[in-house]
């Protein structure tokens, strides 16, 4: 196991939280914006450009760009097999945000799915974030 100091572990935890939060805020904001814009079934790029006149859409895209950068930063510090299940908590939070903020209905089946994913997240969080030392030189 890695002999990471407490402050390094803190940084990884903080990055994990930012990755999850930006995924949720970005997707919910984009979803809200696109719903205001309405259906786009068109081959014209102009119709898609119209979507960017909506502040929720723009905010969503910007926050998702932040998500991409922080996700890469997290992958520089933690295992892929740790990051994948832990950041899946975004599914749970997006479903809950859809329910409470955008008033989407959640069926009994979906509530069970939410519990199952949460169990997976908790299980992964019990493992150390990084189990490798140095760069994976064996690749390419």
């Amino acid at each position: 196991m890695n002999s990471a100091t407490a402050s390094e572990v803190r940084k990884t935890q903080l990055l994990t939280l930012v990755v999850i939060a930006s995924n949720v805020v970005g997707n919910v904001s984009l979803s809200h914006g696109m719903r205001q814009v309405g259906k786009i079934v068109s081959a014209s790029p102009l119709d898609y450009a119209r979507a960017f006149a909506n502040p929720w859409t723009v905010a969503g895209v910007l926050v998702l760009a932040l998500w991409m950068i922080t996700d890469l930063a997290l992958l520089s510090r933690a295992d892929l097999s740790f990051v994948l299940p832990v950041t899946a908590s975004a599914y749970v939070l997006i479903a809950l945000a859809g329910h409470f903020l955008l008033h989407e209905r959640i069926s009994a089946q979906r509530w069970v799915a939410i519990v199952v994913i949460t169990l997976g997240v908790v299980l992964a969080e019990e493992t150390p974030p990084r189990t490798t030392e140095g760069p994976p030189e064996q690749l390419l």
Partner: protein
Amino acid sequence: MRWILVGIIALCNTVGDVLNTAGMKRQGEAELNPRAVAHMVARIFRNPLVLAGLGALAVAFIALLSLLSISNVSFAVPATAISYLLETLLAKYVLKEKVTWRRWGAASLVAFGVLMLSW
């Protein structure tokens, strides 16, 4: 056609994430101050592994859009679920991560939960 697209999405997602992880590990652990983050982003543009990884994710995204245009969302979900298991497998054998039973359990629960979300 649908299943070919599902395969392309799962494969490109997996390859993209594995390449990104390998590339970012080579770059070294990211620091969190604004200057270090700007430096990290600048280095990504000279990091062939991450550029290839982002390219693979872009292909997966385009394939997803094509799939969504010919079928409903529930058809896209198996691709995501497969990706979780495939990526865990490659994390173990390509990235040499220590994938314990807890991590396999976590990946399986998440994959199963994601499938359930779409039923």
